[in-house]
Every structure is written in C-alpha cells, then in structure tokens.
C-alpha cells in the first residue's frame, strides 16, 4: 500500500482552478520527483498535501487515513513535513529556535537539534544567529533541518535548489541518503529536470494543473518529457 496517494485531487484559488484531478502516489522508501514549468500546479499540489489548501477528506490518503480535510497545523503531527519554496525561515528566530520550532508538534523520532547539526555542521557556529543572516544555501539547510525536526514519515521539498549555486545544490542533495536512512520518504519538486532525474526513482510531470507524464526516469525519453513539460510535440 502506498504511503500517500491522492485521488482526483482538485484545488481552487477563488474561481480559478489550479489543479484538475491529480492522481499521485508515493510508496514508503521511494523517492519521487515532481517536475513542471512555472504555474504547472506543483506548489499548489504541495499546499494541498500540507493542508494550507483544504480538500475533500478522501482526496488525500496518508498511511491509510483520509487527511484531505485536515488543517495545516494537524498535518505535521500526522507525519508530513514541508520545506517550503523560498525557505521561509522565521526572521525573528535564531537558527536554533528555527530548528526547535520544527518540533512544535512534539512528534518523536530520531532527529534532534544536535543530530541536525551533525548533518549540517556549519550550524554549530551560527546557532544563535538570526536565520536571515545566513547565505541562501545555509538558509535552505536550516529549512530542511526545521522540517526534519518533526521526524516526518514524508518530507516534501519545494524547489530546494532554486537560486543556489550548483556546488551548494550538490551539497544539499548529498544529504538526502542520510535523511532516507532514518526511514523518511522524500518527494522533491524541481524545475531542474536533470537534478530530478538524478535523484528520483519515479518522476511525475505536471502541466497546467494536470499530470502529463509519470514513470521511472529510465523509461522516459527526452521527447516525451519535453512534450509533457512544455506541451510541445516534436522539435522545438
């Protein structure tokens, strides 16, 4: 049975429909990447999963429970944590406070402030600095650490490579195995197709609020991806 699946998931911003019946599944232990252009609905999809947008209860099932109608502040306690797009560290909290508040829900598990700092050692020197005083890559690592502090079963990473230097992106993705080792399943949303293909066991491509392609990276041809990503057939 899948860890999380959605059935015919829709989402609206007022009258504007952003998602048109998404069917999505992720199994425990597999790594899934969601790719798609700007406005394809990737972030809206994650906002739905995390309860920032409310759905029919049955549209999202997690560990067998219908969670579609749960508000955001109950989702993290159920075991889904998100690294939001743009990091969204709390500027008036220090690095350490940002990490600690990640465990506000009190979920127990392997992660602690010390263990996060083992994973990202630079934090030890910066623990009392405000989050905003860090570089973009360091902020991203704090955001990942903050999400891990809730000891999630499922970690959603929204555009964690956005605006970062390639070496920093590599550093961040290099930590994924250590995260997965603890039993956390990871879903990444990426605009960078190469990156997504490299880390994922399975890829979903979104376009205009629909899933246009799904499968293991090895089975997807460049042409198929281009068509699913841009909606273009044949040569560009």
């Amino acid at each position, binding site marked *: 049975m899948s860890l999380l699946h959605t059935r015919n998931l829709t989402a609206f911003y007022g009258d504007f429909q952003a998602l048109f019946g998404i069917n999505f599944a992720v199994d425990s232990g597999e790594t899934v990447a969601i790719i798609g252009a700007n406005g394809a609905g990737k972030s809206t999809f994650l906002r739905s999963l*995390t*309860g*920032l947008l409310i759905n029919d209860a049955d549209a999202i099932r997690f560990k067998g429970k219908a969670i579609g109608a749960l*508000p*955001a*502040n*109950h*989702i*993290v*306690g159920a075991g889904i*944590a*998100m690294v*939001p797009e743009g990091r*969204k560290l*709390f*500027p*008036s*909290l220090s690095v350490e*406070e940002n990490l*600690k*508040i*990640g465990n*506000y*829900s009190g979920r127990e598990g392997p992660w602690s402030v010390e263990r996060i700092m083992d994973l990202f050692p630079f934090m030890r020197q910066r623990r009392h600095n405000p989050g*905003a005083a860090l570089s973009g890559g360091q902020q991203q690592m704090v955001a990942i650490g*903050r999400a891990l502090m*809730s000891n999630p079963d499922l970690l959603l990473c929204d555009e964690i490579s956005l605006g970062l230097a390639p070496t920093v992106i590599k550093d961040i993705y290099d930590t994924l195995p250590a995260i997965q080792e603890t039993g956390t399943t990871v879903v990444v949303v990426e605009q960078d197709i190469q990156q997504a293909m490299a880390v994922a066991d399975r890829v979903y491509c979104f376009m205009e609020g629909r899933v246009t392609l799904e499968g293991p990276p090895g089975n997807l041809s460049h042409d198929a991806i281009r068509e699913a990503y841009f909606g273009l057939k044949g040569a560009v």
Partner: protein
Amino acid sequence: MDWINAVVQGILVGGLYALFATGLSLIFGIMRLVNIAHGDLIVLASFLGLVIVTGLGLYPLVALLIVVPLMFALGYALQRGLLNFTLGSDILPPLLVTFGLSIIIQNALLEIFSADSQKLPAGPLQTASMQIAEGLAVGVFPVIVFACAVVVIAGLQLLLYRTALGAAFRATSDDPDTARLMGIDNRHIFALAMAISLAVVALAGVFLGMRTAFDPSIGPGRLIYAFEAVIIGGLGSLWGTLVGGIVLGVSQIIGGKLFPGADQLAGHVVFLIILVFRPRGLFPRAMD
C-alpha cells in the same frame, strides 16, 4: 527640587500609561491588529472591578485576582469568536470591527452604569507617600503601579524570548502560513495573545479606577495615550513602550507646570515632535 519632583511624578505616571499601552503593543506586534476598542476595554475592566469591589466587598487590589482572569478569558473568546475572522491581508476589517466594538462597549456601559463618575476606593493607599529625599516625596500607589508595569513588561519579554510559546508567538507574527506548517494553530496563538493583552488591560483598568474617577466615555482618551506611548517607544518594542509611557508622563507633568492646564496638550505636542524627528519611534524593531 521642584523640577526633579515633577520628573519623578511624570515617570511614575508613565508606568500607568505603559500598562495602558502594553497590550496594544503586544497584539499589534503579533498579529498586526490595531485594536480601536483597547481604551474601552480598559474602562470595561475598571467597571468590572467596580462590580466586584461593591458586590463582594473586596479591596480593589484583591479584586484583581478575579478581574485579571475574567479579562483573560474575555480576550481569548473575543479573538477566537470574532476578531480572528477579521484578520487577513486587508488591514481595514479589524479596524472597523474593533471601532464598532468600541461603540458597543461604551453604550453598554452607559446603559448599565449611567454616565456618573465612579471611583474604586483605594483607602489609605490613596494618600500614602514616602520621603525619598529632602523635599522629594512619592506616592506609594504610583510606585506600586510603576513597579507592576516593569514586572509585566519584563515578564512578557521573558515569555516572548525565553519560552517555546514565545517562539511560537514570534514565528506566527513572522509568517502565519509557515507557522501552521510547524503545527502551530495560529488562531489559538492569536487568541492567547489577545487574552494576555486583556489581562494587562485588567491591571491597567483597576489601577486607573483607583487613581482617578472614570465613566463610560473616557475609553478613547486612554486609547490615545496608549497609541502615543506605543509609537513613541517604537512599534513592537515592549521596553520601548515603557519608555514611551514615561516620555508621555514626564511631558504632561512638566507641560502642566510651565503652562497650567496645558498638561494633556504638552503630551500630545511632544508626541508629534517625536513623530516628526523619529517617525519609527525611539526603539524601532530591526525588521518590519
């Protein structure tokens, strides 16, 4: 010595103004809500004190043991049941709703208690004073009020910066959506903030009633003092609010000494001067 005396009295009055303003500062800092009914809630607390003092025959300071929890509960219910629904990207709905609340509270108090001036009996404390130097005496009651203001602000400061709940307050203030992703129920956090705000209002209201006569119409005047103290001190800074209250109190007493009858005007003029030269107040928060 006369002038030193005036400054000392002004500082002590500033403690009361700081208590007026602390709750306002706190909820503005946490949820960007400007509570126009704040002054009327202070007067409501004074009347609540009056009911308890006359009804149960308690001394006003003892009545605080009942008034403070009642106002705390009222604050929680008010935020959860009404004001949370007004919060959003638009700043106008909370202004309008609290403005309406202000009118409702004033009229309800007028209906129940009439327009007569009331006073909470402070007994001997009213006139008790202590000599601190040759020719310089301070009232015991104003010293108690000032000490309370310092303790309240220090306590809130500890709560905000040293506890997990305080971190949740600050996180929610920074970014309510991301705070929810952490499992923080922002509606509950906002309600707690208003509850704490009104607990401080309860103190302010009872002290106000012990110090001077009050009637249902004086709320908006207290709101102005509270606003001025908050803005002089710098939005979102609690210690700044205490300084703001002191600046206001000292200005009023010195103004009244220079130009008899101009004490209130002097406070407003000093406020405007500070607004011109330090539009963000004396101790603005780094981010905003």
